[in-house]
């Protein structure tokens, strides 16, 4: 036991002395690991942030809803010719369970007394878009998140080339379908309220929500596109399908990249630690062989080398992760995403599971890199000592 303690103490002292004498080797190995970890984490973080962005958009649109945007150009339309939105609203073509909300973008901005400037949308007074809309009010609804329902507030309507008009609106929670239009809220204005002045509406937005027994979203969007083509009307259909496909593609690409990173990272760590380990061992092989000549077991020398290499590699890993954690806001910004608590939390959420995988790959690579040194340690003492 005393022999093991003395041997361990001597090997520790020998290692520390070498680190002090030649710090470049330690720094180089730690830096290589740190750089590889930071690169891998940045790549995986960009995937996570992209997936988060798509998931957020998917959440806003919803899985049973699609939007049809349509330009309403007075110059090309014949009088009385229905728009695609009107056709969808009136024909009930997709069955009774499908809900159609038709809104027209008002060419004004509305400012609430709370200070928010919001987009305004016109709706048919006989088809209110909110199911819970109060019939006793004037029909002007301010949809704002986090504001109590049914409160009367003043809103100011800024009309281009006209006076500012003030009216009273009733507050309501934003409907689910509005998140994709403007997550900060919107104002719903009934037709005929006279707030718009002489300006014409130039675009229309139709929200189509399917019921449990309705045709699939894909069938419905295809039908809408066909209808628009037949009527020679330009429409843009936005549904969850492309986002889901993008998300699936992103996830499969992330898995591929993760596998590639594992191979590159593991092989890189193995190569670096093997090459540098062999060079370093040339400096300590004399002492190692001498200790073996006293009867020290080769495994004890290998254990020293393994512990040293794993220690350096994991110090590099921890340093890189710490730096990434403290600069996470900059990382999010550098990856091209808006910095906010949600993006930072996304970055934090991916760190824990990915770190485990990266640490395993890195330590595995380092262990593979120890093999050449193990072979050198096993060489007969007499071939080393002169």
């Amino acid at each position, binding site marked *: 036991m*005393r022999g093991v303690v003395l041997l361990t103490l001597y090997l520790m*002292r020998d290692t520390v002395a070498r680190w002090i004498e030649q710090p470049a080797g330690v720094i180089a190995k730690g830096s290589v690991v740190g750089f590889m970890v930071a690169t891998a984490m940045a790549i995986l973080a960009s995937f996570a942030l992209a997936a988060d962005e798509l998931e957020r958009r998917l959440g806003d649109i919803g899985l049973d809803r699609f939007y049809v945007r349509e330009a309403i150009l007075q110059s090309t339309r014949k009088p009385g010719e229905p728009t695609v939105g009107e056709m969808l609203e009136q024909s009930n073509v997709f069955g009774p369970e499908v809900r159609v909300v038709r809104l027209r973008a008002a060419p004004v901005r509305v400012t609430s007394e709370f200070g928010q400037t919001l987009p305004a949308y016109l709706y048919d007074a006989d088809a209110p878009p909110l199911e819970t809309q109060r019939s006793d009010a004037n029909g002007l609804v301010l949809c704002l998140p986090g504001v109590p329902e049914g409160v009367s507030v003043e809103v100011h309507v800024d009309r281009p080339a006209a006076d500012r008009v003030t009216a009273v609106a009733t507050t309501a929670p934003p409907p689910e379908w509005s998140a994709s239009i403007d997550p900060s809220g919107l104002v719903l204005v009934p037709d005929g309220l006279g707030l718009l002045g002489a300006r014409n509406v130039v675009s229309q937005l139709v929200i189509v929500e399917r019921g449990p027994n309705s045709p699939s979203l894909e069938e419905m969007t295809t039908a809408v596109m066909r209808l628009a083509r037949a009527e020679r009307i330009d429409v843009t259909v936005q549904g969850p399908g492309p986002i889901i496909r993008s998300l699936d593609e992103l996830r499969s690409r992330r898995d591929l990249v993760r596998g590639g990173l594992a191979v590159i990272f593991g092989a890189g760590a193995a190569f670096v630690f093997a090459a540098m380990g062999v060079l370093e061992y040339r400096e300590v092989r004399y002492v190692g062989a001498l200790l073996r000549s006293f*009867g*020290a077991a080769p495994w004890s020398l290998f254990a020293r080398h393994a512990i040293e290499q794993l220690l350096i590699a994991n110090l590099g890993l921890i340093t890189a992760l710490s730096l990434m954690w403290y600069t996470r806001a900059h990382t999010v910004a550098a990856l091209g995403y808006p910095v906010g608590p949600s993006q930072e939390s996304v970055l934090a959420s991916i760190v824990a599971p990915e770190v485990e995988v990266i640490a395993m790959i890195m330590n595995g690579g380092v262990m593979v890199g120890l093999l050449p040194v193990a072979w050198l340690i096993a060489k007969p003492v007499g071939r080393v000592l002169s």
Partner: protein
Amino acid sequence: MTERPTGEIRCDRVWFRYARRAPWVLSDFSAEFAPGVTLLKGYSGCGKTTLIRLLAGFLRPTKGAVTVPARKASRRPSAPGPRFRRERLGFVFQGLNLLPLASVERNIALPAALAGLPRREYRARRDAWLERLGVEPFRTKKPGQLSGGQRQRVAIARAMIRDSAVLLLDEPTSGLDDRNTGIISEAIREYVRGDKICVVSSHDARLESSADSIIDFETFRPPDERV
């Protein structure tokens, strides 16, 4: 702790070369090393150091076998391995090979501790051998602070303190003056008094008087190459 060998170290038709295409250093060499001092003498490069390393197990024979006596008489002799080196061998290298970062005391302590020497016995032997070899005043110094002769004596103290059954010394007196050679020669004689096996490789004629037997490598040399 003092141990007696239970037989001889045997070389049985040993052939050795350092690489596949290299010339043979030893060819069909057979010998028995009994308790007492055996001196290997001969010209430089004749294979003395190689043989002594084969005896320690630092090298493995290319052909043939080197066997060391078992710890118990009932057991069969075996090839020298790490356990033999740890528990039953004292070795002095031609290049001394002291641990550069350790003091004289630590240089001696580490192999003794690996051999499992009890602390009290170790201290007594350490003090005795450092005194005996005249290096007691340098016990806290590091090898770099010692002269060649002092390092030589520390290396010998390190080997002898273990009181192992087998002591192998490779050129222990090279470059030493008569006084130091005399000290080492006497120490060797004193060491083998307990029927230990001691093999000394040297071309130093001053050690011949201490030897019980001599293996002259000159006899292995082709007649036309003899000096």
